[in-house]
């Protein structure tokens, strides 16, 4: 092979390499829209359904795919609740059917499934999707079709600005950051370094961390970022080590936050590490191993259920969910399943208030009137200007010790 021939071949190979990279990206929701049938007129809601027939609630969860650790417990919770609702006489005297569709965590699948639920299954409301991306992909559609949606994803953009038909149940980053800063104030930590992922989740954390810092009297002395596929964070942490930061705050999901905990040990960094609620799960502890010890994070109350004080207002709800889930599946529930629990109970109560034959608009209005619903993720009070409904109290601050969570008394 000549030199030129080799150069040309190499360039062709590079093009192939780029193809491999592209193949790793999830399809955008615009890609296969052309292949779909033109949208039918929105179904007229459920008012035509005969009294006595089952009420249908749609559910969109990432049961398989990259986000299956979210969607699987959500789907399990929904199946369990369908059974429990019906054994207890259904909703407003009618049997209930929860139609679960798998979004695979993909935007295009979520939109197709939402259309099927609304136009074919004629559901009165939808709970889910599991992820922020899949939720945003169907927001325009549910707004146009006038179907109430209670998302199980946390991005602030879902409920801010307020959209008429869209609600959410997970506690959000704004409240998580507020809790972290409150804890730092109590610990006299005034200078911090932040290390956020380049994903949407990390960008949201970066925004909240920088916006709330001045108000909390906290100075950000170093601002670094990472990709969730990165295999070492030594460069960023070495730079942070050279500053006078008293703590490091990491915002990201997947294995990268665990690598950061490990790399901090490697660099013999003594300052405390704070993580987001996104890694408040067993997977983070397993991945980081002993390096997880000492990490502080805001977390769902479910993981420290047995340590909560007896006057905890959510105690009864948390225990009910825990006991029911363990009895049904023989394993511990997590806060993702809790999102499905909260969303379905809010829909159930709204239908009960609106009456058995209520249409989608009446159910939406009643969801908005939800007041002091004590759930798994927190205590919900929606309003015309608030489709998020939670306060910072939804989180508990926890520290990892001996590879387990310890509730921090504040």
């Amino acid at each position, binding site marked *: *092979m*000549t*030199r*030129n021939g*080799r*150069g040309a*071949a*190499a*360039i*062709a*190979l*590079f093009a*192939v*390499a780029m*193809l*491999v*990279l592209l*193949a*790793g990206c999830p399809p955008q929701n615009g890609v296969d829209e052309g292949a779909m049938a033109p949208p039918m007129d929105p179904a007229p809601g459920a008012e035509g359904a005969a009294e006595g027939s089952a009420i249908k609630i749609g559910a969109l969860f990432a049961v398989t*795919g*990259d986000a*299956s*650790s979210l969607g699987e417990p959500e789907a399990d919770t929904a199946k369990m609740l369908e059974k429990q609702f019906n054994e207890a006489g259904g909703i407003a005297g009618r049997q209930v059917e929860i139609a679960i569709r798998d979004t695979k965590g993909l935007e295009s699948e979520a939109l197709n499934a939402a259309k099927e639920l609304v136009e074919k299954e004629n559901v009165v409301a939808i709970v889910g999707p599991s992820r922020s991306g899949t939720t945003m992909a169907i927001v325009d559609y549910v707004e146009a079709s006038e179907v109430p949606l209670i998302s199980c994803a946390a991005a602030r953009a879902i409920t801010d600005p307020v959209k008429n038909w869209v609600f959410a149940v997970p506690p959000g980053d704004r409240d998580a950051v507020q809790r972290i800063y409150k804890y730092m104030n109590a610990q006299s930590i005034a200078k911090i370094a932040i290390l956020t992922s*380049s994903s949407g989740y990390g960008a949201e954390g970066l925004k909240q961390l920088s916006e709330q810092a001045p108000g909390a009297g906290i100075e950000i002395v170093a601002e*670094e*970022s*990472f*990709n969730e*596929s*990165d*295999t*070492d964070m*030594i*460069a*960023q942490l*070495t*730079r942070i080590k*050279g500053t006078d930061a008293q703590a490091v705050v990491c915002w990201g999901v*997947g*294995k990268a936050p*665990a*690598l950061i905990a*490990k790399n901090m*040990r*490697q*660099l*013999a960094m003594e300052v405390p590490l704070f993580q987001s609620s996104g890694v408040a799960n067993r*997977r983070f502890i*397993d*991945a*980081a*191993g*002993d*390096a997880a010890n000492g990490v502080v994070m805001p977390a769902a109350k479910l993981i420290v259920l047995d340590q909560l004080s007896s006057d905890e207002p959510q105690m009864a709800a948390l225990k009910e969910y825990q006991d029911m889930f363990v009895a049904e599946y023989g394993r511990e529930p997590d806060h993702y399943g809790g999102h499905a629990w909260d969303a379905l109970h809010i829909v159930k109560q709204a239908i009960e208030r609106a009456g058995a034959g209520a249409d989608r608009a009446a159910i939406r209005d009643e969801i908005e009137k939800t007041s002091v619903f004590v759930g798994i993720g927190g205590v919900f009070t929606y309003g015309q200007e608030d489709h998020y409904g939670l306060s910072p109290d939804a989180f508990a601050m926890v520290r990892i010790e001996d590879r387990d969570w310890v509730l921090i008394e504040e």
Partner: protein
Amino acid sequence: MTAVQVWQFFLSGLTTGGTYALIALGFSLVYNATGVINFAQGEFVMLGGMITATAIAAWGLPLWLAALIAVAITTVVGLVLDRAAIRPARHSSVVVLIIITVGASIFIRGLASIIWGPNERPLPAFSGEAPIVIFGATITAQSLWVLGATLVTALIMWAIFEYTIVGKAMRACAINPHAAQLCGIELSRMVSWSFALAAAVGAIAGIVLAPITMAQYNVGTMLGLKGFCAAILGGLGNGLGGILGGLVLGVLEALGAGLVSSQYKDAIAFIVLIIVLLIRPSGLLGREGGDP
């Protein structure tokens, strides 16, 4: 930026570079025998780490046995790839064969995600996690394992090519396949050998890297591409060049992330690739004007 910080970037770059070097070596092995860039090379790395982590966590095997099993299984995967996908299409053009390896890589990755699920598998460090301080910068014992494995593997490969009949036959095929066949060397057997060796080398890289980065079904893609960049940088088909390319690339990446911006860390490898292709397509050690 202090000198100690730059020294720290250099040391951590050397560790990453060690894995890139091993992956580049795998690319060169298959390229020399077939003229094909095997884009499934990164998946061999993934398999090495995943199988070792599973063997230790689920089957309770000691590390050395788990690593041995991982190398053996990955080598078999490499052989199957050759027999099932490459050999039936051996009369096709090189580009077709390359696309077959791209397909194989997606297939292996998909299979791994079904078998192991999306979560990462941690692997304990071989000899403790305590940092070692060298002139103010820290490095883990695992980094030394990576560099040691790179060195030892490179020496073994050199010995195979220099002193064994199979190695010499593979070199003969790389230089002139027709002449080699006329001398009685069976080309298809040499191709099988190259896939087996490349898979084994990839698995070794995956095993020593896993305690640092954790094993996960999708780590192969980016590692494969970085290893490819390293192979081009060093001179495709040149073993020593690939190792040099890997180390240089790792250090450049760490320095770039540390001194410029960590956001462009992944871009640095590809910028280096483009510059090399424009200025010196034969790579650092590749001979201008022909195959080695």
